[in-house]
């Protein structure tokens, strides 16, 4: 039974876009760090400043990355959706979350033990490099889209300054 359960986690991992085409041997190894989790609407997957020791592959439901600001409540930085990854701060020191991650509705996810995964990456650079190659595009894409949002392209001309 235990074997079967691990196998299904490995399958879930490989089925997630983050690990598409993953070497089955690596999938089996990573499965040892993974488990399926569920969050009720409104629950926090993690909160800012907490240790980044677990990150999530979203399988169902949506998650908001938020920042709390006195007087303005929760400010949503970005929302994340099935097929996406919640959490990148686990890769780099100081391994602490920068934002809150809150379930918007019921959330199903596969959680990965970050300390366990970091240990496996350090132990086998082949795994480490593979994981890095999968994470870097996500981080880069979020940087690019954040840059474009920063430019406020939809702003009416009056707000960006009317220059002739």
């Amino acid at each position, binding site marked *: 039974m235990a074997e079967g359960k691990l196998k299904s986690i490995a399958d879930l991992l490989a089925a997630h*876009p983050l690990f598409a085409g993953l070497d089955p041997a690596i999938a089996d190894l990573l499965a040892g760090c993974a488990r399926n989790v569920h969050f009720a609407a409104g629950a926090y997957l993690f909160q800012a400043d907490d240790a980044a020791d677990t990150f999530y592959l979203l399988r169902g439901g*949506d998650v*908001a990355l938020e920042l709390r600001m006195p007087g*303005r*409540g*929760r*400010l*949503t*930085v*970005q*929302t994340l*959706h*099935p*097929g996406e990854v919640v959490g990148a701060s686990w890769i780099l020191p100081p391994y602490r979350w920068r934002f809150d991650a809150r379930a*918007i509705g019921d959330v199903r996810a596969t959680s990965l033990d970050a300390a366990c995964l970091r240990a496996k990456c350090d132990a086998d650079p082949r795994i480490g490099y593979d994981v890095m190659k999968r994470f870097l595009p996500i981080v880069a894409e979020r940087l*690019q*889209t*954040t840059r*474009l*949002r920063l*430019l*406020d*392209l*939809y*702003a*009416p*001309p*009056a707000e960006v300054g009317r220059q002739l």
Partner: protein
Amino acid sequence: MTAIARSYQPPAAEADMLPRPFRVVARQQELADCVSLELAPVEGAPLGFVPGQFTMLYVHGVGEIPISISGDPSVSERLVHTIRDVGAVTGALCRLQEGARVGVRGPYGSAWPLERAFGRHLFVVAGGLGLAPLRPLVHWALANRHRLKSVALVYGTRSPDNLLFLEQLRAWAASEGLELGITVDRATADWQGRVGLVTDLLPGMLHDPAETVAMLCGPEPMMRFAAQALGSAGVPQADIHLSMERNMKCGLGWCGHCQLGPFLICRDGPVLPYAELHRLLTVWEL
């Protein structure tokens, strides 16, 4: 000019510098700075158009400006334009009340290449007010839903209070087989939907990129990034179409203002294939 761009060209309208008088028959405040006007001719036949085209709207004593047609192409007796107040003429248009007169010339310009989507997936990407010239296309697509494998609309805008046609979009999504994805750059406290760039929606909504025809309208950098993302996902470059905007005075190809390199946007566009635009879009101040 290339064969693709030319093939879009709808039949020429009357080449006339004289506007026809139309009357505002309905006015809808869409957003704080944005109004839809429904126009009907004071006399004579209504103006037919194909999705993607624009008209020149004239306000007496103020001036004339190109505005894309934003209404249902099958309801030609009501010519709808959605206008944002960004200058003297658009401001005057936005302040017009029911019964007021507007001069209309056109319709001008190229159409969305509807026939290219037959038997395939239609993927519409709108940014901000870029939804307005895409709405006639969505009307058309839903009326021809049986000829299309799927119809998706991805719509990104600045904030929830800048969402255009929201009720209509949700109604279409609920009943007409439109796959709708909406995202905003900045959320407000009561916003329950997605927060992120319009391109964030592509992976989840693009089912069969090689069999997809994409049509985009929005701020130029947004279209460029969206077109790149669609291309990377496997949508053929020749099947990505953009609606371009440049200064226009005549709409007839005679005034020279709307040039973008080899193109006169009023005559060859506004809808042009990304395959022919992509090298031009990154040239500084072209």
